[in-house]
């Protein structure tokens, strides 16, 4: 005689549901052992063991970490801007994102205040120029040097070239896993007038961006003087072309980008703060050097940015007042101290 449970199950199979209900209930649920109970106890013990012991928690932690791809380290650690991080983006951040999955900031010096232009020149290592037309005192900051290292992802780069409409770009296989290092030298920032308070580096600050400037900010001018970046670039990597893609990503139209690149090479462009929004631009001359007056389109942030290059140094003059003030201020630039 087979066991009761077998009888019950085979009975059900034989007649396919014609089994008497009382028989089925009595045999199937009354006498059948609850096989899930030992399993539930084992699972509970394992879960408690993992949750309450240090090795268990470590195991959980490792399991949790293994469930997600390691997050790439963001390139941008500090982005000196007109009045806060949200108003500008640096070209080198965009290029870093295009070149590699992961970037490492190997050097990130702190910004230093300078009491005088001479001290700023001393700290920055080049002769600082300030506009003679502004007679009020400037707040001087020497922004720290920064080095970003990355490893080229060739497949990613090829796709980006394709998306940029240049699928036939020649990229040698040796570029894959090649090392790139971009070094940004110390720069000098001079602030004049009543400038908006920088946006706090908080979630709310990032989402909202800078507040609309008030009429009090009309006299605010921020002058930035930046030496070109130096870089270790593997052969076959066209940085000028990458900069073109980055500039268009930053919001320039193809025409604006071409005019910009006619003045600034990629080394200068990568060191500059660029406006996030731009409505129009004019080609200008500042003390005999070619430049661009960018009229920004953002409701928040400055109203113009004048950029030009004199010698090796790239200049950026950002203002919250009338764009008509830009050229007279820039033309009044005088050197404060010879390079040490």
């Amino acid at each position, binding site marked *: 005689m087979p066991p009761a449970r077998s009888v019950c199950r085979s009975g059900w199979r034989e007649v396919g549901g014609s089994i008497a209900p009382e028989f089925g209930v009595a045999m199937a649920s009354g006498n*059948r052992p609850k096989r899930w109970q030992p399993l539930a106890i084992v699972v509970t013990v394992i879960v408690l063991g993992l949750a309450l012991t240090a090795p268990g928690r470590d195991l959980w932690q490792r399991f949790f970490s293994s469930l997600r791809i390691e997050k790439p380290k963001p390139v941008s650690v500090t982005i000196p801007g007109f009045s806060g991080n949200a108003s500008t983006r640096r070209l080198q951040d965009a290029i870093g994102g*295009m070149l590699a999955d992961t970037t490492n900031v190997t050097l990130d010096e702190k910004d230093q205040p300078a009491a005088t232009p001479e001290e700023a020149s001393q700290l920055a290592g080049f002769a600082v120029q300030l506009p003679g037309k502004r007679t009020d005192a400037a707040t001087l900051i020497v922004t720290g040097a920064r080095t970003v290292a990355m490893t080229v992802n060739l497949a990613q780069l090829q796709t980006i070239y394709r998306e940029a409409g240049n699928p036939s770009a020649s990229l040698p296989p040796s570029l894959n896993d090649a090392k790139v290092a971009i070094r940004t030298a110390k720069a000098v920032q001079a602030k004049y007038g009543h400038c908006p308070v920088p946006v706090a580096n908080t979630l709310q600050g990032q989402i909202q961006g800078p507040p609309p400037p008030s009429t009090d900010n009309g006299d605010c001018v921020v002058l930035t003087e930046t030496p070109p970046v130096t870089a270790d670039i593997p052969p076959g990597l066209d940085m000028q072309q990458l900069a073109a893609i980055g500039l268009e990503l930053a919001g320039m139209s193809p025409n604006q980008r071409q005019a910009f690149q006619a003045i600034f090479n990629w080394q200068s462009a990568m060191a500059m703060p660029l406006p996030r929004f731009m409505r129009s631009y004019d080609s200008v001359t500042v003390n005999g050097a070619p430049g661009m007056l960018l009229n920004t389109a953002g409701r928040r942030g400055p109203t113009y940015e004048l950029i030009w290059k004199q010698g090796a140094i790239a200049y950026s003059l950002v203002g919250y007042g009338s764009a008509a003030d830009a050229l007279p201020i820039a033309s009044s630039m005088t050197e404060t101290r010879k390079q040490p």
Partner: protein
Amino acid sequence: MKNIATIALVTLREAARRKILWTALLAGALLLGIFAIALRLQVVEFQSRAMSPFVRYQVEAGMLMIGLYTCDLLAVVLTILTSIDTLAGEISSGTIQAIATKPISRSQLLMGKFIGFVGMIVVYVVITFNATIAVAYSVTGVLPEHPLHGLLLIIFECIIALSLTFMFGTWFSTLTNGVIVLGLQAVAFMGGWLEQVSGFSQSGHIVTLGIVSSLINPSESLWRRAAYEMQTPLAGSLSFSPFANVSIPSSTAVIYAGVYLCVVLGIAIYHFDARDL
């Protein structure tokens, strides 16, 4: 195997008889129509601006991802709604007693139905997924990266949802089954988006909460992996699209989903085999 194939074919025939696939395809076609109009309007808008073709490509690729996400959501909801009463409904109505007869065992019956639904879902997802890509390509010229990876992961996501409806269908009534599985889907959905939000707040705790949600129901994490595979590299590295991957499910997470599917299906078979009908 023959018994399983027979039940699978019967299930497919039943789906065809009830016009499930056709009505779902009709809903998909309606969505595709709206998607195509939106893309066309976007292209016309871009043509009136002096915008870089490169940036335009990124925006249009982002719109394609939104189209594929809608296709994915529709497929998962279709999977759940069409399968919630396949076991639970037949058990409560007594129909199952006419089906579960010799020589077909209960496990064969369940697997046959499961495979039948998988077949239907595969047909549906392949049609809507490719149609979405075809519409996007014809209007904008944009194609996703690794579309096959994306397609397989979306099908996998639907199969996970299907296994849950089968498992809970062996315990609960149709309505309860639907509430539970849709609830679990909502948990996964919320967990996935919480992880995305963690990109703004840099909160490790939110990421952990998202991972826990994906352990409870890994379906949404499979979509996010699919989005990671299909998005343009630049959209991924520069966070262009709403699916830019802040917290990317790894291969281990995909393997976990596979183990999860086996366990859920195993429990479903075990319980269906053991329960009273």
